[in-house]
């Protein structure tokens, strides 16, 4: 048994599927002096990997998770530990069939072989299933099972073979020491263990359900919760025993009862996601000595499973009721859940301290590779922004939040989750100063980063009559769920008069100091060495030229820049900028998000309204587009910035929180005679921007997309160096492999006669349903979809193969397994509405 070394370049804590994958990929990428420790023995240290059911369904609605899964499958296959079995997701209800049709969209979009099949098709492959219990199924032939423990051993041994890895099992971490670094950011220095201390520059917490406990040792939050997934094993079943090997029948996911049946030799494993959420605290997980089986195989609570048993029996009575088939093994297996269902990856607030947690077997090897790349190069091939540990806002770092959200979401593991679906628990965490006023206006609140944001205002329902069919009402319940035609009415009123929009969720931070210009120049693509008072909209790239973000920068002084970015991704942006502060310098980053509120006012009457509240010159000549300055507005000093994400004349007004409510009321009051209304995020985030073809980070833009493909390149590239410049220059020289286009839907009529409206994620096909493939080998899908009420069209954004990116090109979108004709309307950032941007002037 190796001793614990006293120093290491990197310490990986954990020898589950993630830790093992990490040490393999780190050593493969040239890392030396790698140490891996685990408190348990090898090859099964007792974490979630040890009891996983180990099957992999490849289709997920999330592209990020799907990519990680597909990469993992490729790695498992290469290691020879993947057994293909095929898998069915069966539907007992028509509602579920619709969800399976939606799943077909995802399969087509991600290019995964799948088809919708009849019960008899299923019966042929799974003879012991009761055909009359379900009405159809989603068949993925590529589904399979893996030996995750064996995979872990193989990867660890490969790392050991490089001579750069030392593995020390059965030592437990007792502390993580940090030291104060530049800008008050702490840095990891040492891992304390029961086998001695290790000095290390880099430490990765890959400790699964125990990760929060380790995070606490360094004062960082890793907001996941250990949660129970119940599983029983029934056997021996003669129908299964007849065949050799671990698995020879496809896995069945009984989606409507939230359970699965997976053959394991002569036994059938029945797993459940139907029971109540049973959560544990990481501190309450037993030690190896205390545990009956392993620490993550908690005592089975049979009462919770009983209803599931009946449903499983309904589906496979002959098998599960076979003579001699007994329930011999039953566990409450622990796995990791997070508030948003995504993993927790990346470098934490403590420099050098990384996390790779809340990862399931299907993503393990892919996550190991991606995080190792990230640690090596600063970015990964697969975009990981949904999984970035930097995404969490303070309210999300509370254990209470994780507990409440996972309690709510557990049942959604196999649930039908609408893309617009809102959480009910732990709401009202961040309220804008206008909240009370908005409630009176009948605001329907959606949540972003804890902020309650009005999506539309019920009091604007009075506009519906005025606009009639121009609000593009939706007939189908699914299309209109989490949506209202009032959004489109507010939109039309904005284009006609003006709208006042609460944007308090914006993440705002100031960069101040002698190196402030260097910091923004280094991080931003656009020229930031501009006159004081200029506003710059800019992409932010990673080193390989993929998007990290897009945001606006205001130069408020020679050494003073203010960055304004979306709330959802703001924390990651802040971490990115903070990471580029010179270590030795005096430049600081200050978060103003909780101090400054933002109110937007846009529309043809915006200037009239604003000028009625100020003596300052707000004419185009006196206050030009893309400039900002302090003005006195309704008796309050406000930083006004003339910019627009909705394609209208107007301002973003940054106002101290304590004065925001007063300003809000003043704007509404002054606006009323001009026809202005309050408008929600439905307008700001979707209809307003999509008419203008404005791209959104997280939808059109992510680290796998380039400025050129997104059609956002400017004629010139600034002379100053910036992150991703080299890659960006190279991208400009190459023909793009995909082109972001705007498409409009020509006919919404479905076979049943109901008009259908796409919500995003749908595949774009040829008019007759043929597959399209871009230069990356990817298939085009809708990145954003929404009404364009001023155009009277439903607009889709999608990256198309370059030869399909032709204005007027007639294609189709597949929605719920029906084709709808679409036409390419724009092949670059040119908006369909007001292409010359007259309205903004």
């Amino acid at each position, binding site marked *: 048994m190796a001793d614990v070394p006293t120093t290491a370049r990197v310490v990986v804590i954990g020898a589950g599927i993630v830790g093992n994958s990490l040490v393999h990929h780190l050593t493969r990428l040239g890392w030396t002096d790698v140490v891996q420790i685990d408190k348990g023995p090898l090859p099964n240290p007792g974490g979630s990997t040890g009891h996983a059911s180990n099957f992999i369904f490849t289709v997920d609605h999330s592209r990020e998770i799907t990519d990680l899964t597909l990469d993992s499958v490729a790695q498992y296959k290469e290691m020879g530990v993947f057994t293909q079995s095929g898998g069915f997701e069966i539907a007992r209800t028509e509602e579920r069939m619709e969800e399976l049709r939606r799943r077909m969209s995802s399969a087509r979009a991600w290019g995964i072989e799948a088809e919708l099949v009849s019960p008899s098709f299923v019966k042929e492959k799974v003879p012991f299933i009761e055909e009359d219990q379900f009405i159809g199924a989603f068949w993925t032939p590529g589904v399979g099972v893996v030996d995750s423990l064996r995979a872990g051993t193989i990867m660890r041994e490969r790392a050991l073979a490089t001579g750069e890895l030392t593995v020390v099992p059965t030592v437990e971490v007792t502390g993580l020491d940090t030291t104060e670094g530049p800008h008050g950011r702490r840095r990891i220095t040492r891992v304390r263990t029961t086998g001695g201390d290790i000095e290390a520059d880099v430490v990765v917490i890959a400790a699964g359900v125990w990760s929060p406990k380790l995070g606490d040792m360094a004062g960082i939050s890793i907001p996941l919760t250990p949660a129970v997934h119940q599983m029983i094993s029934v056997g021996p079943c003669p129908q299964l025993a007849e065949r050799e090997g671990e698995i020879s029948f496809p896995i069945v996911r009984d989606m409507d009862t939230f359970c699965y049946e997976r053959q394991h030799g002569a036994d059938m494993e029945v797993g459940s996601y139907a029971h109540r959420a049973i959560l544990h605290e990481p501190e309450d997980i037993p*030690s190896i000595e205390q*545990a009956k089986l392993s620490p993550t195989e908690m005592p089975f609570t049979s009462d919770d499973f009983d209803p599931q048993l009946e449903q499983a029996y309904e589906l496979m009575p002959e098998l599960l009721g076979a003579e001699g088939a007994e329930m011999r093994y039953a566990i409450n297996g622990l796995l990791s859940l997070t508030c948003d269902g995504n993993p927790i990856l990346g470098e934490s607030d403590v420099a050098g301290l990384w996390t790779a947690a809340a990862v399931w077997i299907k993503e393990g090897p892919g996550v190991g590779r991606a995080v190792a790349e990230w640690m090596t190069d600063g970015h990964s091939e697969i975009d990981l922004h949904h999984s970035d540990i930097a995404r969490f806002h303070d309210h999300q770092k509370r254990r209470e939040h994780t507990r409440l959200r996972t309690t709510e979401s557990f049942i959604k593991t196999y649930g039908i989750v609408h893309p617009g679906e809102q959480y009910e628990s732990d709401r009202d965490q961040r309220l804008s100063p206008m909240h009370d006023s908005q409630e009176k206006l009948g605001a329907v609140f959606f949540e972003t980063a804890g902020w309650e944001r009005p999506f539309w205002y019920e009091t604007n329902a009075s506009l519906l009559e005025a606009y009639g069919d121009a609000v593009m009402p939706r007939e189908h319940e699914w299309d209109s769920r989490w949506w209202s035609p009032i959004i489109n009415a507010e939109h039309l009123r904005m284009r006609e008069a003006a709208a006042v929009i609460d944007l308090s969720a914006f993440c705002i931070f100031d960069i101040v100091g002698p190196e402030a210009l260097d910091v923004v120049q280094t991080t931003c693509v656009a020229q930031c060495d501009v006159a004081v008072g200029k506003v710059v909209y800019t992409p932010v790239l990673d080193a390989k030229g993929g998007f990290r973000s897009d945001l606006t920068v205001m130069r408020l002084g020679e050494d003073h820049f203010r960055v304004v970015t979306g709330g959802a991704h703001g924390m990651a942006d802040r971490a990115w900028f903070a990471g580029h502060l010179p270590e030795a310098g005096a430049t600081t980053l200050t978060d103003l998000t909780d101090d400054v509120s933002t109110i937007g006012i846009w529309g043809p009457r915006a200037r009239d309204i604003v000028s009625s509240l100020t003596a300052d010159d707000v004419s185009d000549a006196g206050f030009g587009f893309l400039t900002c300055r302090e003005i006195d507005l309704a008796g309050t000093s406000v930083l006004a910035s003339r910019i627009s994400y909705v394609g209208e004349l107007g301002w973003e007004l940054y106002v101290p929180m304590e004065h925001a409510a007063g300003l809000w009321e003043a704007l509404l009051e002054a606006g009323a005679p001009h026809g202005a209304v309050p408008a929600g995020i439905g307008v700001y985030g979707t209809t307003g921007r999509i008419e203008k073809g404005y791209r959104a980070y997280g939808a059109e833009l992510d680290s796998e997309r380039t400025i050129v493909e997104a059609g956002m390149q400017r004629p010139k590239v600034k002379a100053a160096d910036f992150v991703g410049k080299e890659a960006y220059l190279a991208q400009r020289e190459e023909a793009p492999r995909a082109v972001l286009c705007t498409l409009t839907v020509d006919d919404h009529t479905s076979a049943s006669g109901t008009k259908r409206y796409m919500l995003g994620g749908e595949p774009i096909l040829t008019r007759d349903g043929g597959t399209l493939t871009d230069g990356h080998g990817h298939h085009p899908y809708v990145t954003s979809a929404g009404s364009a009420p001023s155009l009277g069209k439903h607009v889709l954004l999608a990256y198309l193969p370059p030869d399909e990116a032709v204005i007027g090109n007639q294609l189709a979108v597949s929605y719920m397994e029906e084709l709808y004709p679409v036409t390419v309307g724009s092949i670059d950032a040119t908006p369909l509405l007001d292409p010359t941007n007259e309205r903004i002037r």
Partner: protein
Amino acid sequence: MVDPLVCVKRVVDATSEVVLTDDEQGVDGRYAGFTTSAHEECAVELAVRIAADAGGTATVMTLGDDDAVEQLRAALAVGCAAATHVVADAQAFGPADVAREIAAVVRDHEAAGTPHELVLLGNDAADTGDFQVGIRLAYELGWPVVNGVSTVTVADGEVTASGSGPDGHETFRLPLPAVVTVLEGGVEPRYPSVPGRMKAKKVPIEERRPTADPVGPSRVRLVLPPPSPSTVQVLGTGPEAAPAVVDLFEQLGVLAR
């Protein structure tokens, strides 16, 4: 027809390191979970077989808190057909208290026209290890008691029980009614089947309160024994240690054929 009553107790599944409750009065089961003592699982199996052979009904009973229903359901899932739950804090009940409560159930069932001619118990509970409830029950009922046997059959109003004793394999034969306490090993308790478990869920459970306040178990507190120091000699790690292992075999003389 024989309608045996089998008595089970919800105990911590102490196959791992034992953790005590904060009040030092019991074993904490939150990590290890709860189970039925192994002896009692065999008693249940015997009761089910006796009832099946004789065309009777096996009834399971327990004294325990609300959670002890889990143990009743487990017994119902493997073939018991009725269940009685004396809802009480088992920790506060001593062996004499428990015997009194079982006797009360036996008498009440008899009064209700559903008598038990045979009561089966485990030889001793896996947690408290008192070795006496069955015997005390026999005195409560005025019935004979056979202790520590591993097989039990009933024929013609007589119970035949046997098990291993110090002088060999011992057999007892006596007329019903009788109390028998069972040691693990004579029968393989079955695991529940899926239909069995589903059926168990639907069986109504007779709930009752204790007939008297418990005298208690005379327990002062529980303590954990101190760990003993290790003197292990590690021969090596992994397959490389094989020669050292075989050297040890040779040294101990266990390799010669």
